């Protein structure tokens, strides 16, 4: 074929950033589903629930009536949301008093705890399940090494980006698995409550996360947070000068989103991108007009890079983050760049989103695999919709509500309607 002579079509690069963020989300969900199906072979009743802040008000008993379970779950969720709000306000306060160093160190300590203790316990479950012959000393040593490398990878940005990304996904998997140990009704009501809280905290004028974002913008600082950052798309045929391939850095736009919330023991996990909040040209250094490709500007801007954002939170119970789309295109490209189809931006997604998506899918896995597929598709659709809304509205948007609400809706529809239909049709070998 003459494909080498054919110029590259536009189809080769469109939508790449979206796929770069969907891939780690899918991997995280897949790992949690595998963990859950391997380790939780008993029924999904709350036999092994552990005392936590999320079961403070009510511990589910499988013999309770549905109404009691619902009431108990609502109480639990309420307690949880109240605690999270309080801790978020505490975080805003700490940030206001410029205790950033403290926050960073606390986050490093938190990720150490997550990787070390939670990771250790889950490894012990797996070792017990598969009867792996390993002795304590080897196990302790490898776990310690794993944990320390993880803390360094997340804390400092000098490691290869794939290691940082891998460890962030691992942290998400570990925390999501622990969330699935909560009782069933509590988990679902908690997910919906967190989605609504996210909506309120980011969009309402008094919401803690919005305050945090505005503080960060006004001070031009980064919020220490755990953020998954997709690799930016480098466009090779946009380098007119010389052999130097410039790594495209994102232009700061007015967008900024964060999400954070935390929990008693842990610090919040924030994800933020500092934005100048001003017009695109201010505060940026243009590399000269000869660098511009037609219609798309290559700009180097200050970027709130991962190095400053690597305060890893201990994500014990919740995190709530938002997505941030940074766009590099010029203003009139906004209609297309806005859909996330631009080739010069990178997308960041907070770790809390990873965790809650995975919790939803893992809970669906505890029922049956058909619900898993339906919820997976719903979450990805929600993520896509949120990206488009983000590009459209150009401001901080919560990533949880659309996906979680769609996921819960599809779970209910599948469980109640689809499953009977498909099983009936398949048993009669009626396929279409």
């Amino acid at each position: 074929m003459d494909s080498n002579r054919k110029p590259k079509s536009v189809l080769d690069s469109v939508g790449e950033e979206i796929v770069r963020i969907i891939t780690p989300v899918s991997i995280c969900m897949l790992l949690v589903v595998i963990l859950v199906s391997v380790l939780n072979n008993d029924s999904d009743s709350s036999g092994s629930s552990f005392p936590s802040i999320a079961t403070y008000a009510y511990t589910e008993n499988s013999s309770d009536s549905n109404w009691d379970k619902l009431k108990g779950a609502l109480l639990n969720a309420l307690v949880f949301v109240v605690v999270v709000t309080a801790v978020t306000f505490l975080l805003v306060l700490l940030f206001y008093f410029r205790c950033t160093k403290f926050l960073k160190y606390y986050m490093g300590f938190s990720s150490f705890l997550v990787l070390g203790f939670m990771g250790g316990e889950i490894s012990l479950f797996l070792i017990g399940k598969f009867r792996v012959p390993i002795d304590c000393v080897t196990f302790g040593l490898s776990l310690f090494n794993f944990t320390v490398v993880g803390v360094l990878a997340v804390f400092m940005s000098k490691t290869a980006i794939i290691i940082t990304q891998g460890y962030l996904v691992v942290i998400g998997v570990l925390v999501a698995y622990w969330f699935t140990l909560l009782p069933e009704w509590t988990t679902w009501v908690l997910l919906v409550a967190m989605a609504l809280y996210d909506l309120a905290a980011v969009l309402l004028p008094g919401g803690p996360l919005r305050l945090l974002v505005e503080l960060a913008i006004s001070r031009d600082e980064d919020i220490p947070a755990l953020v998954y950052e997709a690799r930016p798309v480098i466009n090779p045929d946009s380098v007119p000068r010389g052999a130097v391939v410039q790594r495209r850095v994102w232009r700061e736009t007015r967008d900024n989103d964060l999400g954070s919330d935390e929990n008693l023991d842990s610090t919040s996990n924030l994800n933020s991108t500092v934005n100048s909040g001003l017009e695109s040209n201010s505060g940026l250094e243009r590399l000269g007009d000869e660098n511009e490709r037609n219609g798309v500007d290559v700009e180097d801007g200050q970027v709130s890079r991962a190095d400053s954002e690597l305060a890893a939170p201990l994500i014990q119970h919740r995190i709530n983050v938002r997505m941030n789309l940074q766009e590099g295109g010029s203003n009139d490209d906004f209609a297309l760049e806005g859909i996330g189809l631009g080739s010069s931006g990178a997308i960041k997604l907070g770790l809390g989103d990873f965790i809650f998506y995975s919790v939803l899918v893992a809970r669906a896995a505890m029922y049956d695999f058909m619900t898993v597929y339906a919820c997976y598709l719903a979450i990805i659709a929600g993520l896509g919709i949120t990206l488009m809304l983000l590009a459209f509205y150009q401001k901080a948007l919560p990533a949880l509500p659309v996906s979680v609400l769609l996921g819960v809706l599809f779970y209910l529809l599948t469980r109640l309607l689809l499953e009977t239909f498909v099983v009936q049709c398949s048993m009669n070998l009626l396929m279409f």
Partner: protein
Amino acid sequence: MTVGAGIGYALLALGPSLSLFISVISKKPFLILTLLSSTLVWLMSLIVMSALWRAFLPLKTAAWWPYTILILTSVGFQEGLRILFWKVYKKLEDILDAFADRVSKPRLFMTDKMQIALAGGLGHGVAHAVFFCLGLLTPAFGPATYYVEKCSKIPFFLVSAIIALAFSTIHTFSMVIAFSGYEEGNKVDKCFAPVVHLIAAMLQGRIQNRNCRDWLTFHFLIPQAVPDPPKETLTNLAFGGCMIGIPLLYCVAIVTLVHCGKMAWRRLIESRSREGNLSNSQ
């Protein structure tokens, strides 16, 4: 039967789709997004159908007409969605062409358009395989297996995997045929997809029914040497049920493949000769 068997069934249903995905679709991110959205559309159509039919299930009658109506409504709805998909695709094509002009890249090639159609069809095929085969595969990972009375010689999981493979082929390539038919206005191609879908679905439905099977046995097949046994299971062995339905289904799948191949070849040759004429005349 074991984890190995379960994975085997899953790969049987999804193997060719997986290789198509890895070789063609994973290289272009836009195609991955197209695949995900067409899977979602298929899932939503399935949910709507199940909402409609929920009140009537489980169908306990042995008569054939409820099943026929079920299949007719489902296939009709899905074909309607295909037309909707086409309309959305046209809008998307305009947006992509405008974007290409803006960044001064060439507009969408014909192969690009066919690849998008392929991704859309693959999404439908994967969705069918996932919901009709993989979703039911959970017991297959355990120590036992399961047989249905309609096809009692081979395990149910194997039957559903084989049928899912045929259907995903049909879905994948009939989408390419349908899109090219809508684009060129070719009547044959336009009607090909719904007709093939309906035939394939009916093959599964009708052949299972004992009356139809007996009719076929009486008129077409070798007269039975043994007297009509009372149990359905013995009849399934030689004279019908899935033993007829599945090979016929694969015939339909092969017809789809061949037709799609011929159509794609013809269009490629045409466009190549058109390009040749253009460059010659310049």
